[in-house]
C-alpha cells in the first residue's frame, strides 16, 4: 500500500472495481464487502461504474426473456 494519497486512492479504485461483479452477485466475504461499500460511499466515479455495471447485467438477464426481441431464453427455464 502506497503512502501517497493519490496513489492510494487509485489502488482503492482498482481493488473495488476488480470486485464489482462479486459485489453485485453477493459473493464478497464480509470484510471485502465492507471495504467496497466504504469506498463506494465516497468515490462517485466507482459508484457510477457499479450502477452502470448493474444496469448492464440487468439487460443481460432480460435477454433471457422469451418475449424479448433479442432473447435467447428457454421457456423451460426461469
Amino acid at each position, binding site marked *: 500500500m502506497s503512502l501517497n494519497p493519490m496513489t492510494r486512492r487509485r489502488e482503492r479504485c482498482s481493488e473495488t*472495481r476488480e470486485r464489482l461483479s462479486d459485489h453485485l452477485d453477493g459473493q464478497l466475504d464480509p470484510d471485502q464487502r465492507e471495504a467496497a461499500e466504504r469506498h463506494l460511499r465516497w468515490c462517485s466515479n466507482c459508484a457510477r461504474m457499479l450502477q452502470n455495471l448493474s444496469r*448492464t447485467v440487468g439487460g443481460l*438477464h432480460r435477454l433471457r426473456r422469451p418475449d424479448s426481441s*433479442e432473447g*435467447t431464453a428457454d421457456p423451460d427455464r426461469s
Partner: protein
Amino acid sequence: MSVPSTHSSAEGTLVAEAESDDERLVARAQDGDRDAFNELAERHSSMLRRLLFRITKDCEAAWDAVQEALLSSWRNIGRFEGRSKFSTWLTRIGINEAYRGMRKGQMELLELDDSVGERVPDWGNRPDDVFESREFLAAVSAGLDELSSDYRAAVVARDVDGLSTREAAEALGIGERALKSRLHRGRMALRAELDGYFEEGYAG
C-alpha cells in the same frame, strides 16, 4: 441483485407442466425410447441453437454444437440423475461443445481495461423502463457480440442462460476463479461498449 420474474402465474403453470413432461420423456429415453428422446430434442434444440449462436456467432458452428450436444446427451442420458432440469443439463453440454469448437486453434489474451482516474460516464437518472426497452436490449445484444469469445462464453453462460458459477465453469471446462475473472471482464467490457449508447447523458 435480483432477477425479475419472467413468468406470470399462468405461464408458471405452463412451465411446470413442460418440466413434468420433460421428466416423463427423460424416463422413457433412459429406458432406450429413441422417440421420446427425439421429442426432447425437438422441444429444446431451437432454444439451444439460439443460445449457442450467441457464443459462436456462426450459424453453422452453433448448429454443429447443438448436434454434438444432442448426440452426447443421448449417449449419456443413462447418467442423467435429474438433479437439475433436463434443459439445464443439455445447455451445459451445448455450451461446452460450442466453446470447444470455437477454441480450436485460438487463444485470446484477457486484459482488463483499467481506466482508473478517468471520469466514468454518467448514464443519468433515467427511469427503469429505459433499461428494459427493446432499444437498450438491442444495444446490450450488439455489445455482447463484440466481446472476445472467452468473455462472451462466460457472460452468456452466467448472465443470459443463468447457470451458477459452478455450472458455468464446468460447462466451459475451466475453474471457478477463471470463470469469475472472465465474467467480470466481459461485463466490464460490455459496460464500456454501452457508454456510447448513453453518450448524450455524459455530464462532464
